[in-house]
């Protein structure tokens, strides 16, 4: 007999094998998932879930695909949360402090409760990256928020109504486009290709007979 535990999906009790994740336990219980299920490997944030262990007060947030079931787990998934993404033209905006004030002014209403950080399924310091955004320190905000999967558990818990994943995303795009130094070698290569520098060479290799290509391939010099 498998080691079983009792879990409660939306308050209804199911007995499931103890080594399952919340997601596979729901499927074991008979659910066919449409919402609340995405990459199943912890990258897409589709399966934001909250739970409480029976008899304990603390409310926890997690990704259903990355979390093992426990005895007495009361589970509710949050398949959609109305995070508030503001639209902008990436080519028009500039990485100056007022852009946050213009697009996400509510971040200045943060009361410092740290509920966002406690709710983060990736263990990020969410309140810290919002603080960086407030001060216009976009690079730090980008770095601190980089591993965000956008599940939205932070926003669910925020008394100031901040859409944290959207703030981090804006900071990352500003950093990637405007703040990180340009790649000269990349720009040079793009220009070379556009000017036709490789046109003949690529034509030549495409035209080579198979045996010659095999010979070339099997004797490539490999960069150390």
């Amino acid at each position, binding site marked *: 007999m498998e080691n079983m535990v009792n879990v409660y999906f939306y308050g209804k009790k199911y007995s499931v094998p103890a080594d399952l994740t919340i997601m596979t336990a729901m499927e074991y219980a008979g659910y066919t*998932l*449409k919402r609340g299920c*995405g*990459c199943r490997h912890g990258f897409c944030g589709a399966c934001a879930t909250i739970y409480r262990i029976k008899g304990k007060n603390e409310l926890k947030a997690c990704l259903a695909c990355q979390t093992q079931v426990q005895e007495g787990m009361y589970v509710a998934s949050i398949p959609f949360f109305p995070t508030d993404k503001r639209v902008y033209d990436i080519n028009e905006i500039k990485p100056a402090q007022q852009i946050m004030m213009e697009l996400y002014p509510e971040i200045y209403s943060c009361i410092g409760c740290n509920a966002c950080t406690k709710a983060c399924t990736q263990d990020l310091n969410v309140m810290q990256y919002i603080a960086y955004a407030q001060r216009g320190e976009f690079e730090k905000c980008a770095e601190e928020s980089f*591993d965000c999967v956008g599940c939205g558990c932070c926003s669910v818990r925020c008394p100031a109504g901040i859409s944290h994943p959207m703030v981090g995303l804006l900071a990352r795009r500003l950093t990637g486009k405007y703040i990180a130094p340009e790649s000269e*070698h990349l720009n040079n290569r793009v220009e070379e*290709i556009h000017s036709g520098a490789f046109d003949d*060479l690529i034509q030549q290799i495409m035209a080579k007979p198979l045996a010659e*290509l095999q010979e070339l391939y099997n004797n490539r010099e490999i960069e150390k």
Partner: protein
Amino acid sequence: MFTPEMLESIKKVEATRPERMGMEPRRMTAEEKDTLLKAYHPDYKADGFAEIKVGPNKGQKAPAELSTLLHSNSRLLGADIDLNKIDYDVDVLVIGGGGAGSSAAIEAHEAGANVMIVTKLRIGDANTMMAEGGIQAADKENDSPVQHYLDAFGGGHFAARPELLRRLVMEAPDAIQWLNRLGVMFDKDENGRMITTHGGGTSRKRMHACKDYSGAEIMRTLRDEVLNRGIPVVEFTSAVELIKDDKGQVAGAVLLNMETDDYLVARAKTVIIATGGAGRLHYQGFPTSNHYGATADGLILGYRAGAPLLYQDTIQYHPTGVAYPSQIYGALVTEKVRSLGAMLVNVDGEAFMHPLETRDVAAASIIRECSDRGKGVTTPLGTGVWLDTPMIEMIGGPGTIEKRIPAMLRMYLNYDIDMRKQPILVYPTLHYQNGGLEIGGDGFTKAIGNLLVAGEAVGGIHGRNRLMGNSLLDIIVFGRNAGKAAARKAKETELGALNLDHIQAYAGELEAAGLHTGSVSPLLLPDYARHER
């Protein structure tokens, strides 16, 4: 959290580590690789395949599960769909909301087309989001698109379509620049030089990355751009059949609202299939690194409408899927772990191969180690070999793992395994569909002049095996190209009267071949729910 047997084996791995640190295992010769693949790669396992009995690829083989879907009827057969009631009317219809579909939509929009995306889950719910290791482009001084071509062509067993591969490598630097200018945060040094590494089978270090969230960083940026542009995205709505017109063109798709089960009609002057892969069909019983929605839908839609497949019988098994613990069984362990120095080691602590052979060779080698050679480590769900991750910290210095592959570290720490201190157990996982719908160098299918395909649903870009980092690249290069080409083509396309006659014709072919699978296709979602009765 390892078992006592695993811990015993780890001692052997630790004992040989100092000696292995200084050495580089020999690479296999071309003949050795050939013999290995034929004996151990799943593509050579005859009973995993079945002959296709109808349609343009009749007589060729395909994975048995895919053949079954190809041999099934449309769910619209006999349904009463009023094609005169148009719910969406656009220039360009993009089916699929992953990296290829989003890139296509952005470029079509940039070209002034009225474009919409339809996706059966959410935009960004795609294999793109899960690509970890990186994206190739020959943009360093010691490298060139020609070298990139040679690596990819040889790695794909000289089977790639040259005109497709040419586009892939020649437009790669441009793709990186485009992404960078959209705000993707590539790993760079303080002077702006891209930090690049090797992938299996590369001869130059041209793997660009965004830590080990490369695909996620690209996908969330593309999604944000789609939303900034106000491109309509219809989520939880699946394309279940292409619509054609009386001129033999495609003319849109019938959509299914996944939540209400209502059908909708989208009319379009050009259609781009960007539906991704097929990992959730679990060919030969393999676990998969793929997204929940990876069920080959686009292949079925295109094939039923008359577009041929190419290399539908070649599948990529990523050599390093998680073998243990069971909760993350089949999840991807990025190839970057090996790029950064971790070796593949068997139960006795022996490095049995060079860690950066191409994926098909590496997967076959691991399968051999775990089967005939009996040198695998037993796990609750099967067997695996060690990936000696502590080597990364010894080579790159303490902190390298946290900085370069934070997602991997986090995934294992969830289960109390610290990969900085202990090796991890891996086994091949179903990762990528090398084949797909056949297109020409311009991105259009050859059979239907206004139907395009982009991304993993395409066959022929990589040949019979794909190198790491060339998939994130192909979704961008071919996605962008498809968007531009579809927008152009829409301007000159005049649609005729809409019909679904091809469904009936296909049903006739199935009937004539005596095929009755008892199911309908496309699959849309895998069947994972357990029912006691």
